[in-house]
């Protein structure tokens, strides 16, 4: 009887320790889940960026015959595409991708002046593919940024910050496109 009574505080302590461990495990697993979601969300962005990259040679082939007077516009697209292969770090890559978005926007704006081109079913199909890919990039980016924000909130806020510090969870990088690049209206020169 006496032995049993003396053991009670020990059991209470053990119980408390168990609860604490389970609590830590819960937060840790939550962080892992979020980190995987961030990876998954980035993979979705990446798929769309690659798709756009692959579509461009096709587009160039199609418009070449029609847009003889738009050497500069076409070259800008080719160069912007080449810059992506050259980009090493993630921020560089993001900037290069934004450049390609702008160059493509100009190309499509200029294409309005070529009725023959606008009548080509091949061009129209490609245009739908590219604009849709452009949309998909921005929607996937939107979701990626939301996921990153949830991850960063968890990593920065108490009590997640303690667990994150212990197991070395880092804040993730947002994929932000600078407003000017995105909003910049394509300049069309009809002269």
């Amino acid at each position, binding site marked *: 009887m006496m032995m049993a009574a003396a053991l009670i505080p020990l059991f209470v302590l053990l119980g408390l320790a168990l609860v604490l461990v389970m609590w830590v495990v819960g937060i840790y697993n939550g962080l892992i889940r979020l980190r995987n979601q961030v990876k998954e969300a980035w993979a979705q962005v990446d798929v769309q960026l690659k798709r756009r990259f692959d579509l461009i040679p096709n587009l160039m082939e199609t418009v070449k015959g029609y847009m003889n007077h738009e050497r500069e516009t076409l070259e800008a697209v080719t160069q912007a595409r080449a810059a992506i292969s050259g980009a090493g770090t993630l921020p560089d890559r993001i900037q290069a991708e934004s450049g390609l978005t702008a160059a493509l926007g100009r190309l499509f704006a200029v294409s309005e002046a070529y009725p023959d081109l606008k009548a080509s079913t091949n061009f129209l199909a490609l245009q*739908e*593919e590219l604009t*849709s890919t452009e*949309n*998909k990039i921005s929607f*996937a980016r939107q*979701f990626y940024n939301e*996921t990153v924000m949830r991850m960063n909130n968890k990593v920065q806020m108490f009590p997640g910050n303690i667990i994150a510090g212990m197991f070395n969870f880092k804040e993730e990088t947002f994929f932000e496109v600078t407003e000017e690049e995105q909003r910049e209206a394509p300049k069309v020169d009809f002269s």
Partner: protein
Amino acid sequence: MWEQIAANRRKSAVLVFVMALLLVVLGWFLGEYFIGENGGVLGVAGALALWLILTLVAWFQGDQIFLTMSGARKIEKKDLPVLHNVVEEMTLASGLPRMPDIYVIDDPAPNAFATGRKPETAAVAVTAGLLKILDRDELQGVIAHEMAHVRNRDVLLMLFAGILAGAVVILAEVGLRGMWFGGGRSRSRRSDSGDGGGAQAIIMIVAVVLMILAPILAQMIYLAVSRKREYLADASAAAFTRYPEGLASALEKISRAPDKLASANRATAPMYIINPLQRDGKMAADGSSTHPPIAERVRILRSMGGSAFADYDASYRQVRGGKRGVIPKSALTEDPPAAGARSPRTEPTPSARVRAREVDNLFYNNAGYQRIECPCGAILKIPPGFTSTGAQCPHCNKVHTV
């Protein structure tokens, strides 16, 4: 945005629980009323059995039943590339794990719905009428609204809520008929013995009141849940597309269309983007509809300052003139603060005529029609049962071999 799912699930769970409670209480009183001695337990057991049977039937009928009932047909990317692209875009925006299957319904009434208890088995269906009248931005808004239903698990919730409400209605109906045709054995037996007459009288009165009020209450809760989910799906659609005007203008176009959907019924009504059963000229009723009035939905979307949940909530309060918003607090704090609305897309949308032809061709192809392009520019569509070997072009009289 993710917090919102959890918060809604809790709130909806409370409402569904109230309905379940209603069912159990109704069962108990009916049991006491009709069976007497310990009849309450039997009544509850009966009510739960009824609920279980309805649930099992709904579960095993599966998601396909909606699609079959509405005569929907699955399409691939090559059939309608724009629709396919828009669905893919919204899959990315909503972060669903899998792109839903796309179905098209050959119906001139513009409408759309989503099914699927889990996002993994989800499908969206749109009518031919919808594809013909909406441009790309509007179509995107509608698809975003449907994807929001899938993402927020609304299909599953409305299925459960619908079954519970249905069970309450059936039970009350049975009780009322029983009373009409001289039921209530306990009444005569117990009042003869004389003891507990007062308690018995109270049970009787409560039972009768419940039989009348419970079905009304259950339906009101069901409709309230349904309308709430519509507002939330609208808010989510604005957040996904970053362009509330797309959905607003789509809703306006849909509500102005003269055709009404042929294949809708009361069970499938809450699944559609607008209530397919709304009669012409009738103002979308306040308490008796699965959907909020369209004019109000459009006004809320149009007076949004940005495209975030907080903007929708503020706009909702402004339009409805109340203090209470529609988005849970926890969702508002989790939401990205600076989600500005984007400007309309300047991308090319095929003209209404081109879209209509594309959609019509799809259905002609599906029906087994053969296409012959005449050199004069006309297109001959040969029906599958055509027996003759030659067909004459009505424009240039050239005879083609079939």
